[in-house]
């Protein structure tokens, strides 16, 4: 890459070069460094949610095995393809901007924006279904139907069996505790506040005797994770749509070209990151087996 020369007079500098940069190349590299740093903060933010997902799934895989069947793999896959296609048109758009192909750039950016709308539309349908079926986080989780197409008897059977055998009331304190592998004599905190936890341990908390489907405890956590992760991702999609719409306005005026494509490039990098997050969300939420 060639270093571009410093302008001799302030009036002769390239049109898009800000005064505090020595050259277009330096300006471009600085911008790119900035956007990569921004992307790392984005990744770290999402990693908090991925971390929560990993801890929950490692401790309670049954919740994920059970609840993911409520999600539609078809809609998730459709959205994956839509987002990958929009990433492709965005990458192509950067190329068009670099080559000064203004009309093509406007067209590609428009396709990208339309894809984002389609993505959000599909997401809206999914959220609406979850809302109507009361598949929501926390206390708002009270579905009337078990998830389709599962053989959950095995799962719940082993679980309730172990609940029966291991429930804290049956555990007798052992004086000999302390040897390796022995149970602690410390009473479990779960039966400390009397009356709170016992009914939960007995499985009475379900309150959904209308269907006998074996359901693991705390399925609402899956929907907490689901809405937090797809929601934060959706907010990023909306943010991306705003900047892409801004780019389209600029591109129509023909401001982008070989010397000035950085805004398209940087928005593109952000948009690819949004795609990257979804690439991981799709198998982790929809394709559990």
């Amino acid at each position, binding site marked *: 890459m060639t270093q571009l020369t410093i302008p001799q007079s302030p009036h002769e500098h390239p049109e898009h070069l800000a005064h505090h940069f020595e050259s277009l190349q330096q300006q471009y590299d600085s911008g790119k460094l900035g956007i990569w740093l921004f992307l790392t903060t984005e990744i770290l933010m999402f990693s908090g949610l991925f971390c929560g997902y990993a801890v929950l799934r490692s401790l309670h895989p049954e919740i994920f095995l059970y609840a993911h069947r409520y999600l539609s793999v078809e809609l998730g896959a459709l959205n994956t393809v839509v987002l990958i296609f929009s990433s492709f048109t965005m990458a192509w758009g950067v190329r068009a901007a670099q080559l000064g192909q203004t009309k093509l750039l406007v067209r590609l950016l428009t396709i990208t924006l339309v894809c984002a709308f389609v993505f959000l539309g599909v997401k809206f349908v999914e959220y609406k279904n979850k809302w109507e079926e009361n598949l929501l986080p926390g206390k708002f989780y009270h579905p009337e139907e078990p998830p389709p197409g599962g053989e959950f008897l095995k799962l719940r059977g082993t679980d309730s069996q*172990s609940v029966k055998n291991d429930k804290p009331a049956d555990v007798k304190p052992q004086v000999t505790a302390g040897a390796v592998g022995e149970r602690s004599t410390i009473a479990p905190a779960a039966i400390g506040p009397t009356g709170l936890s016992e009914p939960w341990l007995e499985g009475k908390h379900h309150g959904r005797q209308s269907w006998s489907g074996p359901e693991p405890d705390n399925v609402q956590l899956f929907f907490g994770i689901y809405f937090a992760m797809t929601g934060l991702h959706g907010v990023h999609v909306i943010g991306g749509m705003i900047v892409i719409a801004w780019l389209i306005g600029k591109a129509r005026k023909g401001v982008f070209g070989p010397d000035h494509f950085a805004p398209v490039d940087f928005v593109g990098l952000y948009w690819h990151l949004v795609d990257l997050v979804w690439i991981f969300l799709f198998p982790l939420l929809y394709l559990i087996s």
Partner: protein
Amino acid sequence: MIQKPADTSAKHDSTHSALGHVVPLWLLSAVFGALLVLTGATVAVAHIDLGNMNLYLALAIAGAKATLVILFFMHLFWDRPFNAMIFIGCLLFVSLFIGIALTDSRVNDASAVGGQGSAMRGVHVPLGGPK
């Protein structure tokens, strides 16, 4: 003052622009095709029961897709190595973050403590609290 080549507006060199690398269209299309194939693959293998391997296979495919997007759509293959260092450094911190959290979340396991920690298998202390 930058002198533009005479043919700038008409025809540009398809691999070089003044500032960054121009990715050829065939490569973008090939990456797009590969991403579609891998998406199909990840849906397909989800229907095969491989036990624990399902999760790792799904993550491996997602990792492959992410690598393609980062290297070619995001230009990191041709970019300055410093940007790649920042990105890889970020991934290192993410793996530390999730890795250490995962080992820590196993501390209350029955075999580790021998008590009745909330994470003990089979006890099922509710995480959400009563309604």
